[in-house]
């Protein structure tokens, strides 16, 4: 292995503020199974979050960003970048990030950009923000991972493809509620999930692609990060992994030596579904909501055909005050309205009008 594989800025950086968003509607997996499988299907999650008619990646990112600002206690005009990672940007051509920047009052002295990198667009933006701040180019940058994922009606993905995500303000370590000690990215071209232009729904490989894709990448990123740092699973209070269903992150954790207790607070997929670009990082927000100063956290994202980013994070004493300054992730999850398949089909635009 070459030297310097870890990504560590010369200026120490961390998370200044964070914010989650989950829409209020839920469709149970058994309701999808009722419609498409006669009620007989293995259910990969209990239920998933569905956006309302007036919600999309732009509106959801705005709310998560406002929560991050409330916790970060900085002015929107202090931000020098707003980067939004998603697979479901509302426009094919026209940025998401400019609307978010405008709505939170961060314009005009700001970088804005939309990222699209399978399910790890959000963590990719976080790594870029670490570099942006860590180089001294800027003091504060916001990275968002947010999705309103769609699965083809009746397809296995429909049970899990969900809506939600999180926003993070990256800034100098001395003003951080959690320092990001370093990150490591493991990237190859191993696609098991894709969507061509003009197609509404994605295609995916069959079940066995989990091994060379998800497990290979997420365990390699985490293992290498820990090896290079000289840590093991025991050195971390908490861990959170990309969560396309309930079993994958549980098994990845086990392979890496983490206990079910270590991943419990960040394992949200059973109750909100797979939020794609938001999946691992919204788990991180739920961990930060309950974390204590000194807690060490391993975060690892995954994107199909994109790779995995792993992060080593240490919570500081600033968490105690800031965690309470915005709506907690579990409070968004508790704000739950169950809908049936017909309402879901209307909300997700699955009913063709012409």
């Amino acid at each position, binding site marked *: 292995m070459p030297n310097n594989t870890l990504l560590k800025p010369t200026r120490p950086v961390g998370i200044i503020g964070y914010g989650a968003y989950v829409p209020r509607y839920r469709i149970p997996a058994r309701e999808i199974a009722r419609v498409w499988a006669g009620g007989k299907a293995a259910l990969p999650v209990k239920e998933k979050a569905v956006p309302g008619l007036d919600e999309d990646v732009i*509106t959801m990112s705005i*709310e998560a960003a406002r929560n991050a600002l409330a916790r970060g206690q900085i002015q929107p005009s202090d931000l020098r970048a707003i980067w939004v990672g998603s697979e479901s940007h509302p426009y094919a051509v026209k940025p998401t990030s400019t609307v978010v920047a405008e*709505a939170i009052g961060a314009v005009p002295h700001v970088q804005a950009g939309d990222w699209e990198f399978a399910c790890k667009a959000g963590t990719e933006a976080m790594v870029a923000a670490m570099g942006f701040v860590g180089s001294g180019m800027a003091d504060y940058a916001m990275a968002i991972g947010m999705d309103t994922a769609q699965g083809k009606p009746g397809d296995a993905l429909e049970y899990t493809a969900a809506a939600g995500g999180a926003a993070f303000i990256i800034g100098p370590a001395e003003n951080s509620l959690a320092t990001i000690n370093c990150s490591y990215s493991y990237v190859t071209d191993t696609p098991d999930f894709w969507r061509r232009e003009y197609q509404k729904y994605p295609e995916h490989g069959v079940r066995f692609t989990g091994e060379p894709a998800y497990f290979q990448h997420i365990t390699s990123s985490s293992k290498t990060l820990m090896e290079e740092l000289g840590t093991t699973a025991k050195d971390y209070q908490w861990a959170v992994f990309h969560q396309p269903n309930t079993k994958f992150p549980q098994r990845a954790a086990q392979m890496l030596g983490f206990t079910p207790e270590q991943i419990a607070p960040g394992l949200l997929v059973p109750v909100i579904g797979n939020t794609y670009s938001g999946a691992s990082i919204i788990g991180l927000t739920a961990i930060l909501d309950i974390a204590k100063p000194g807690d060490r956290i391993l975060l690892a994202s995954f994107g199909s055909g994109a790779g995995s980013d792993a992060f080593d994070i240490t919570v500081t004493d600033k968490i105690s005050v800031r965690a309470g300054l915005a*709506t907690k992730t579990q409070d968004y999850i508790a704000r739950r309205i169950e809908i049936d398949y017909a309402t879901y089909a209307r909300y997700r635009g699955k009913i063709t009008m012409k």
Partner: protein
Amino acid sequence: MEIPRHWRLKKQRYGLVGEVCPHCDYKIFPPRDVCPNCGDEAKDLFTFSGKGQVYSFTTIYEAPTGYDSSAPYTVALVKLDEGPIITAQLTDVEGSSVEIGMPVEMVTRKMRDDGDERGILVYSYKFRPSLLVPQAHHPAG
């Protein structure tokens, strides 16, 4: 709607940015550059907290073009904590559970498609029932 009009309205629509009168501190929304209280010029921008309560409301079943895809929905007069009463759509709420005096907070949501699926998406303020947040951090709420 013409594109430049969307540009002019974006600050008030996205972030509930109005004005404050430099002479009498009256808070103004929507912005109109003249203080309705003292009649003097008032052009200082003021970002509202987004907190308020339902003053009155009605549920729309027959919606105008551009809004019909989200009908039925509830429109309310919302009295903002800073004073002004504004008309806005409520969201994340069933019409049957809306009450006068209900605490609400501003969110930015998709208002409508301008024309059809080819047009620009219009985002604006709506209000939803206030989420439960720790009392200590919202002493005014």
